[in-house]
């Protein structure tokens, strides 16, 4: 029995063993041999994908370890997506991190632990595993942010992130304890059963507990009341870490949202619906408005991330009636977009020279027409204009919102997206309409290897192709659920 249960968490076991192994190996290897770690890391990821693939064939739907971890197709698929994305990020960031002398064991170990944290988070089926996963994730990310000790910004961001994430963990724990106090359990299935009792649904302490739990999780998402760390971290962290923070945790948290809201607390929807709605309105509003005045492209993308999270949250708002597919679709498309944009930033940064000011991209079009075209596709997709994939993402979310009668909210979101259009267009303006200036560091050094460059191009073309035929992404979303 135990063996069978251990087999189901084989991906987690493999990744934790390999992460420790890499840490030890990193201490002994010479600097020029560090590429071995890189390949071991990739190999681990490949093997985990393989294991998950095998597990997927059995159509497992099981709660293991006394119901503290649940393994089903949903969690396995999300894990697979995370691993695939993580591998791509590792491949792309290879050249950049060697430029800032991070190409060593710690980096890879921490990335692996962050992945492990996300995997635990996704498959958690009681509050303690959830807390464990969340903490493992944020602790690894925190160290990753501060890993490049030379940069002042990174240190500041790391401290900020650490303090705020501890506060939010405190909130989360407090919420958990309140819920435990009422229901006498931390197991999701039991809580779900207990909540069928209508009297308990209006219990004040339970409501407060739920609110605290939501705030704890939303912090990791970076939605508005807890968004302060987002711009600083996006700005301060090395670009690969920024990519990591801006993409993967979103998948994990969208996954845990599904479990918490749709499967466990669906009877409390009268509480969390208003909360999520408020958070998403605030996120869309602040994200879009503050992004307008940013001249640093990383900060701008951070605020745009906040606005996009608002959209994702607004999708979860109606997901009980209209399914979770729009949310997953939006998340995947958004991740592709933001991944592409950060790859562009990474492309133009090397050896600590970051071209992160929007004006650094002046007149890029004359020098690199095809790359500019790709950037243009990514930005139009972020605005949500057909024929790019961003349009369908927006469309699906809006459709489910209109279907459940939130028309006013939809109009608000759309007007905000028009305002959001302004700052995305601003980048296009700089790239296409401005004259080139001579002293730019753009295209002197590339922080992206050839493989990374091809990945960027494929990513952009994918966004365009999914804009014409979005069925593949839709199929993936349907497979996940």
């Amino acid at each position, binding site marked *: 029995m135990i063996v069978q249960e251990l087999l189901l968490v084989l991906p987690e076991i493999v990744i934790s063993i390999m992460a420790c192994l890499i840490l030890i190996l990193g201490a002994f290897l010479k600097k020029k041999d560090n590429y071995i770690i890189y390949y071991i890391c990739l190999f681990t990821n490949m093997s985990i994908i393989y294991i998950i693939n095998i597990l997927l064939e059995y159509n497992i739907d099981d709660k293991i370890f006394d119901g503290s971890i649940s393994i089903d197709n949903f969690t396995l698929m999300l894990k697979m997506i995370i691993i695939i994305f993580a591998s791509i990020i590792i491949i792309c960031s290879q050249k950049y991190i060697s430029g800032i002398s991070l190409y060593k064991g710690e980096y890879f170990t921490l990335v692996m632990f962050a992945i492990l944290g996300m995997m635990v988070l996704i498959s958690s089926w009681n509050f303690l595993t959830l807390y464990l996963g969340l903490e493992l994730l944020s602790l690894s990310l925190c160290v990753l942010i501060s890993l490049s000790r030379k940069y002042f910004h990174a240190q500041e961001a790391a401290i900020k992130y650490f303090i705020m994430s501890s506060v939010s963990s405190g909130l989360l724990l407090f919420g958990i304890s309140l819920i435990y106090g009422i229901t006498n359990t931390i197991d999701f299935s039991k809580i779900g059963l207990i909540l069928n009792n209508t009297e308990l649904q209006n219990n004040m302490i339970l409501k407060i507990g739920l609110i605290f739990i939501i705030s704890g999780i939303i912090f990791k998402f970076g939605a508005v009341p807890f968004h302060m760390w987002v711009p600083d971290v996006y700005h301060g962290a090395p670009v690969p870490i920024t990519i990591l923070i801006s993409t993967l945790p979103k998948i994990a948290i969208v996954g845990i949202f599904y479990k918490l809201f749709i499967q466990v607390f669906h009877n409390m929807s009268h509480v969390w619906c208003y909360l999520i709605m408020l958070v998403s309105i605030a996120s869309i509003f602040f994200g879009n408005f503050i992004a307008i005045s940013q001249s640093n492209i990383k900060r701008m993308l951070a605020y745009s991330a906040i606005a996009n999270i608002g959209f994702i949250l607004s999708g979860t708002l109606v997901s009980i009636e209209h399914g979770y597919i729009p949310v997953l679709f939006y998340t995947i498309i958004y991740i592709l977009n933001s991944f592409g944009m950060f790859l562009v930033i990474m492309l133009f940064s090397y050896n600590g020279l970051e071209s992160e000011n929007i004006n650094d991209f002046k007149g890029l079009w004359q020098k690199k027409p095809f790359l500019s075209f790709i950037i243009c596709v990514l930005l139009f997709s972020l605005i949500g204009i*057909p024929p790019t994939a961003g349009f369908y993402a927006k469309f699906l979310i809006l459709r489910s919102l*209109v*279907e459940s009668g939130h028309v006013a909210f939809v*109009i608000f979101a759309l007007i905000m997206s028009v305002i959001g259009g302004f700052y995305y267009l601003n980048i*296009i*303006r700089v790239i296409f*309409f401005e004259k080139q200036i001579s002293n730019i560091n753009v295209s002197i050094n590339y922080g992206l290897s050839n493989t990374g460059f091809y990945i960027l191009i494929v990513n952009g073309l994918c966004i365009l192709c999914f804009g014409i035929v979005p069925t593949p992404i839709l199929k993936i979303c349907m497979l996940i659920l």
Partner: protein
Amino acid sequence: MLMLMIASLPLLSFLIWIPILSGVFQLIFMKQAGKKNIESFSLCISIICLCICIFILYNFEYTYVMQFSECYSWLPRFGIVYRLGIDGFSTPLLALTCFMTVIVMISSRSNVIKNTAEYYSSFLIMQGFICGMFSASDAMIFYIFFESLLIPMFFIIGIWGGKNKIYATIKFFLYTFFGSVLLLVAIIYLYILTEARYENPSFSLSLFRSLKLNISEQIWLFWAFFIAFAIKVPMWPFHTWLPDAHVEAPTGGSVVLAAITLKIGGYGFIRFLLPIVPDASFIFSNMIICISLIAIVYIGFVALMQKDLKKLIAYSSISHMGFVTLGLFLSCLQPHYVVGDFRDISMGIEGAMIQMISHGFISGALFLCVGVLYDRLKTKLIKNYGGVINTMPVFATFFLFFALANIGLPGTSGFVGEFLIILATFKVNILYTFLASTTLVIGSAYMLWMYKRVMFGNIKNKAIFLFHDLNINEKIVFTILTIFIICLGLWPSPLFNLMHESVNCLIYHIIECKI
């Protein structure tokens, strides 16, 4: 036999995808190909499209049903079907699009343009999008093309525009984007209603037309549609993006903007607003007629005061497009006033359609005229000109003809539409007639005064002495446009025949109470 074979091909899809694909091809492979080759290639593509369009016109049957229809399942989960088809409203506009693109292609040949390949491919791609929009009979397909259209226009103004291009192009983009998101909400809302009431929901326009809506739903939908299309037309309070966009756009961009994209607004009113929410349209029609009259009179006066040639013509465009909305909403009002046959009611809509087509020709021609002047003196300010007639007599003749056509001289196409609409106003309210016909005075005031300041008098600016008259490309373009304007003015009945049945069908939808 051959004709039948050709007619069985998916001609509308060709009309959409040939220009788009060749534009992309040009963008990727012909960057180094040399200016001549690029120009000839794009001209060829646009002429091929024109030929297809002429074939479609030739084979068009005078009924109200959708013809040349194509239907492929595209995104079944979204309920989106790739559904094309044209009727009496879209066919003339489709023809106008293909025709004006050829004109733009010919007229741009003589200009020096940087990044030639990108310039021409933007126009080709834009042509494809516009054709797709006019031939869509699925609301979502319409919307996708409607919004995609912004991208090439954004680049045309932004890259090849004038001094203040960035302000103009971002304003243009955000204004239209704002309108189109409202359109999106309205379309999604209608789709969800069909989902509740029919077995197989879809975005099909014909399904939307047969949908029964209560009055509050109609009013909300009305405002969403109205703002979306009023920005495109543009109607009076939403017009401020147009003069900026026109002033900064390159000549070709201005021509397409004035001749084709403004018609999208009018077409949207005909396709969405009038048939889908007829009762709300009736409720608000007096208001919209007032707005149109404000556009006609007030914007006419604004045009009078312009110092910039392009701005003047842009304002005159707004004023003339006011006639289109006036005509359309008069027909909404009329059934409740007049007891008569469809003939009386159809006058407004037919007038509006004719006005749209003729304004396409005339405003395009006028912008080309400004382009001719601008190419020679590199300024658009009226005060820098004067006495151009001395060095450019041929041009002066054409320009005068187009100016008079813009005023609405009998015998030109400008007359037919305005006359019909003014006639239609008689049936509703004599005050409307009075206000609408002031355009004849104001219009001639601003056009002729502008003409006098630019063309007549002594040569003030020494550079004008060096002006050479029209070159061969410009002559060809102006001659073709002149012929079309006169033909349409003297013998508009083919156009009437083309759209008569569709107009009757639309009136049937308007009269039928939906509640």
